[in-house]
């Protein structure tokens, strides 16, 4: 049996040839700036995520070119790790831990009320452009559970009320 596959489209490949030189320049610089000796597809994706807070689609191609991998390979890695985001986050990123320590210390209420004050259902971006809510499996400060993080600052022994106050004051 012979098989021909036609029109096989890589998701995201559609716009890869569209010129967006400013953005691409920033991406290239971010990839090149990596200081650790071993540079891989993953390290380049992490460098991009650090620079932009997400992975712009142009980065997939730039990283492929830089590392000699195929765009498919870069996609494969980017879509695997859960910290990679593909849309630009809002101004402030609020992460709430839902691991078991935080869970039994009251994380569910915090998540519920934080989402409510941001006007969203769960993970995602608030409409006013201010906050992005993300769940985290462990923020690493379990002895101070429940823990949230706002723009990389950790806050322990949270309550729903305190978390909502912090979000409102952003």
């Amino acid at each position, binding site marked *: *049996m*012979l*098989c*021909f*596959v*036609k*029109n*096989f*489209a890589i*998701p995201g490949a559609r716009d890869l040839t569209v010129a967006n030189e400013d953005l691409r320049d920033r991406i290239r610089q971010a990839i090149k700036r990596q200081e*650790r*000796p*071993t540079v*891989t*597809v*993953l*390290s380049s*994706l*992490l460098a991009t*995520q650090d620079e932009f807070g997400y992975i712009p*689609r142009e980065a997939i191609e730039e990283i492929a070119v830089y*590392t000699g991998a195929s765009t498919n390979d870069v996609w*494969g*890695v*980017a*879509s*695997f*790790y*859960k*910290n*990679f*985001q*593909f849309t630009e986050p809002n101004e402030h990123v609020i992460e709430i831990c*839902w*691991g*078991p*320590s*935080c*869970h*039994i*210390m009251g994380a*569910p209420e915090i*998540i519920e009320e934080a*989402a409510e004050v941001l006007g969203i259902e*769960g*993970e995602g971006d608030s409409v006013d452009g201010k906050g992005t809510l993300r769940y985290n*499996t*462990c*923020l*690493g*400060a*379990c*002895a*101070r*559970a429940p*823990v949230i993080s706002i723009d990389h*600052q*950790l806050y*322990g*022994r949270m309550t729903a009320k305190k978390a909502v106050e912090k979000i409102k004051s952003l």
Partner: protein
Amino acid sequence: MFSYDELKGTADQRWKDLTQGDMPWIRVGTEMNGHAAGGFQVIDAIRSELGARNIAAYVDEVGTLGLSYAEPIVDVLKPGRRSRLLFRDVLVDDLPEIIDKYIVNDSVPGNKAFAYLGEEPIQGVPDLRTIPQYGMQQRVAMRNAGHIAPADIYQYIANDGYAALNKALFEIGADTVIEEMKASNLRGRGGAGFPTGLKWSFMVNSPGPIKYIACNCEEGDPGAFNDKAILESDPHTLLEGMLLAGFSTGASNGFVFIRHGHDGPIDRTERAIEQAYELGILGKNIMGSDFSFDIEVSLTGDSYVAGEETALMESIEGKRSMPRFKPPFPAAAGIWQKPTTINNVKTLAYAPQIILNGSEWFSGIGTEKSTGTAIACLTGHIAYPGIYEVPMGLTIGQVINTVGGGVPGGKSLKLLQTGGPLGGVLGPDSLDVKIDFDDMAAAGAIFGSGGLIVGNEDTSVVDLIRVLVTFCQYESCGKCFPCRLGMTQLLDIMERIARFEGKPEDLDVCERLGKTMQIGSLCAHGQLGFNPIKSALTHFISEFEEHLNERRDPTGRTSTKFFSPKATRPYSEDFREVQPLEVISSL
């Protein structure tokens, strides 16, 4: 290039200035738990308050004494004093009083003063060693944690740092290092408890010149934070452990594998590596010997399975962290097919002390088959959550009740979750179980990463198990179907039971799925993925049956509203636009 004696000379002089000079030395706990308690705000405020008063002092960020419940801890050594005074739960607003009363004058402010540590009693506060949370600890891997600044290599050297490396390089040689590690009976602290000396010996005869030592600090287990705490408190101990592993196995390079986003451990490890290179402790011809070794930090994305040793190697190569088939084993073909040895942070952190003090000293701690210490992370419903390094062989009850202060609020203990999400849960009858590899295994639990999550009488087992299963399902890497599909089925069933919509056959189906997963999965994530449910059915079956048969929740605490973490769906609009494959086939 400096010899060890030169380095030690400089370090001792500096240590004398710090501890016997004419300026106060202020240390602030800023490990992740200290961070979450506001440690960085406190240290900034200390600097500005001192500046406003024109007081010259050494101010250092340190790691953790293990007493996370009391963070931020401010630890003051005054000139002319032989004891440090510790303040607990310090807020920025407390600082003027602490500085004016204790540093400027000489009285002990009553409010936040916690304990003293040293040879000379300080009026009005107890000796920290009489407080069980500190006094019951026997700190080996964490001996410097909270005492020295992780950012200053000389403080490490002044406290016997790199003395074991010096001994290995110039006195005893590589073979004796391996012999000592074997004789110490140290078992790996990454979960499986594999003998470390034996693991190292596997790589000795693997062909070079490129061979790798990888340190596993993925630490994705919620409820465990001791690996990160070691990196944040005393990264040089880890580097020295890796150097010993590298020297004795003939390796050329090391990777410290950390999850992206944990800035504290990452930054402090990188700073330590930089300093070690500056002083010739890393790089070519270390301390004038003919041993050369390089170490770098390798970051991974969020993936629990990346902590599995073969998945870790894939991640270091920059790929998806999916486990590989074994054999070949890492000692034969690991990272980029080169011989590789993978160890947990704690395992490597013990090595310098074993080499320095001898295997007999180490195997004298703990029990016969589980030598050394256990580093327990106590969290959940516990009076004193923290990181406690205690000798192996204490019972779980001693650790929870004596060290951890028991369950607060007059409530009783209902369950324990040990060894990470795959470890499952235990009931109160497990308090007599000894903490060591074999006794824990016999009780159907694993000590694993050292996480001990305590749930009080109000905790809903069904709810907690649903969360653990959510975690295991979310973190399945997807490579093999028994785990990928099995976890999804298990989660469906758990959610159903929690909503009182369970079917009579559900628990049987769980058992069968669990068996398939155990037999058919490539790595322990799938093999143990059924553990949370299995252990809960052993200890708490009635709670499940009540949910199932009587549609009733005895605790009243089972959430019926779940939030599920979103799977990554990149550029979803593109997926919609992807045209269907047009497959033309002909005979």
